């Protein structure tokens, strides 16, 4: 659904909850990530998208809706989005959504997106855990709207008829014009995201997060065969850690002696 022109843009923002990397530990034996008990936080890249949405709202007014698909603890990421100034938060949560790949994730998000009016969809560039950078583009395809990635600047036309953006490139930038509605994947070059305030958190606590289950989405016309693991055309047969680095060498004792050993070793390896 696309909103009528007038009162400012309706922006939909997709955010993901990811494990707090500062609390992540590796299993010393299997080297796999120990996710259990690790607090979840708002995907750091999504903060830039949120910042973009908030700045657009400051300029044009309108309404910012945040949606996430994830387990119940994803509420925390949504609450943080509300604290930062989003108007509404929606959580798509159900066991049926579990273990979705990017396709199934994008499909599920698109079902919800189609139920609300929007002029623009924003996503982060990538999630720090999955890191595929696919969900944004796939979501755009499901919604049948154009998209751009690496977006670092957004100039929305006041009549809601189009948007001029800048895309960050390796050495330089592109300027694109896109019609609305469109989907933009926001890069960190967009600018420093703001911090939530005490008053913001308190207001967020008062706001209800709307919860939608698989059943609710089916009622909205979704095909439940496309949800979660069962709806995922790709799967991950194996996750392997990067090969362990050989241990370093430590020379202690007399500094002169240690330096000599270091120089010897470096020249042996052909570095000096």
């Amino acid at each position, binding site marked *: 659904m696309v909103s009528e022109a007038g009162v400012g843009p309706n922006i939909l923002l997709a955010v993901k909850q990811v494990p707090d990397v500062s609390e992540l530990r590796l299993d010393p034996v299997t080297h796999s990530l120990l996710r259990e008990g690790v607090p979840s936080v708002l995907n750091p890249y999504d903060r830039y998208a949120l910042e973009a949405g908030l700045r657009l709202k400051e300029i044009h007014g309108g309404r910012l809706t945040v949606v996430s698909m994830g387990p119940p603890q994803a509420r925390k990421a949504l609450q943080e989005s509300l604290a930062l100034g989003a108007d509404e938060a929606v959580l798509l949560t159900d066991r049926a959504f579990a273990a979705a790949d990017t396709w199934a994730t994008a499909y599920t998000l698109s079902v919800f997106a189609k139920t609300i009016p929007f002029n623009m969809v924003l996503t982060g560039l990538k999630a720090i855990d999955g890191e595929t950078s696919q969900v944004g583009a796939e979501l755009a395809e499901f919604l049948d709207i154009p998209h751009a990635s690496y977006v670092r600047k957004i100039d929305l036309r006041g009549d809601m008829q189009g948007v001029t953006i800048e895309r960050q490139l390796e050495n330089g930038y592109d300027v694109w014009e896109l019609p609305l509605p469109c989907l933009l994947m926001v890069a960190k070059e967009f600018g420093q995201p703001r911090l939530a*305030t*005490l*008053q*913001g*958190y*308190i207001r967020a*606590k*008062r706001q209800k997060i709307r919860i939608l289950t698989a059943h609710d989405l089916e009622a909205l016309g979704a095909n439940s065969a496309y949800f979660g693991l069962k709806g995922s055309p790709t799967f991950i047969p194996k996750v392997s850690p990067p090969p362990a680095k050989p241990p370093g060498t430590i020379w202690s004792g007399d500094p002169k002696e240690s330096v000599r050993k270091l120089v010897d070793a470096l020249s042996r390896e052909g570095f000096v």
Partner: protein
Amino acid sequence: MSTEKFDAIVVGAGPAGTSAALTMAKGGLSVALIERGESPGAKNVFGGVVYKWPLEEMIPKFWEKAPIERKIIDHRMVILGKDSGFSVSYKDDYLGMETRGGFTALRSRFDPWFAQQAEEAGATLVTSMPVSEVIEEGGRVVGIRAGRGKENELYAQAIVAADGVMSTVLQKAGIRGPPAAEDVAIGLKEVIELPSDTIESRFNLKRGYGARLDYLGSVARGKSGGGFVYTNSNTLSVGIAVLLSHLLELRCKPYEILDEFKSHPVVAPLLEGGRVKEYQAHLIPEGGLQSIPPLASRGVLAVGDAAMLCLYPEGTNMAMASGVMAGKTILESKKTGDFSIQRLMLYERLMKESYIFKEHSRKKNYHNVLTSGDRFNTDYPDAITEIMRNILVVDGVDRGTKHAAARKVIRDKVGYVRVLRDLYRDIWSALPW
């Protein structure tokens, strides 16, 4: 945006703060509970025994739903000699019923659960928000600040300082300074993983029930310190506490004391094969009665460790009980619409009549015992070792002779008068029971 005013702001969602918030929220007050950690308990450390009272007053039959590790039925007190241990133990299934003998808990699970009860009662919990300043107006504290700008300010009729031993709120409000080195101990704790079956056979326990072992005597190289081993479901909480001023005199790292405790021949077999899962350090108030700051001052009610109410090994119950009384005081103020500083003094009156002050008064010598003399950490433990070794070795010397030798050890090591005086007075401050 409106900067609304709360009835009360509680800073810190530990046992003290959550108790205050829960009490007030149940009474219908608007309460903001502000915690710096990512979740309540995220930054908290403690040995692990929580008591039935006063938790039950707030949450009847909590033992049916709280995240309890084990219900304590075996209380052991061990006086450590250099290589020996003299234990007294009391074991009773009665203590396990309804957690009468207390229960072990892990703060990272217990605190969030407890804070959730306050939230469900209507308190507004905000996490990841360190309070950095107080806002003063006309000689009283009227709000707090957690960052720059108006959006990080919050105002209330009354402020509860529940932010622990280093209390930012009390320090910023000028109600007390940082605690002195002889008024705090440094507590170190490890969580050591062991299969629950191993814990049950090693400590002779039934499933779900636990033991607490408190160690006195030669724990910290002859200085004032204690140790503990508490049983959780599939971990042990193992730790020591040493008076900070004594640690400074010892000029050693606190973990060296913990390592010595863990390798003591009486302790080591209990931990064998365990894997250290967590390591934590925290200050513990040990200053006793004389270190308690003004409890109700300038619109701020001080509770728990912020008010230095911990009386080793009881801290959580003191924290909760004071939180409840602060909550009740503010409820009274709300009823009469009188939040004046005088009216808030009710908290101090309630406290003075409570278990907390009765216990602190009874143990008023505690701090003296800690800071003065080595007899509890060296002389008595040495004497006990010498006497017990002599008596328990059957070597053809008659017991009469041995008893005489024991009396001589007591006379030489501590002196009869001292023993009598200690038995009459100081020992009751030093013992946990």
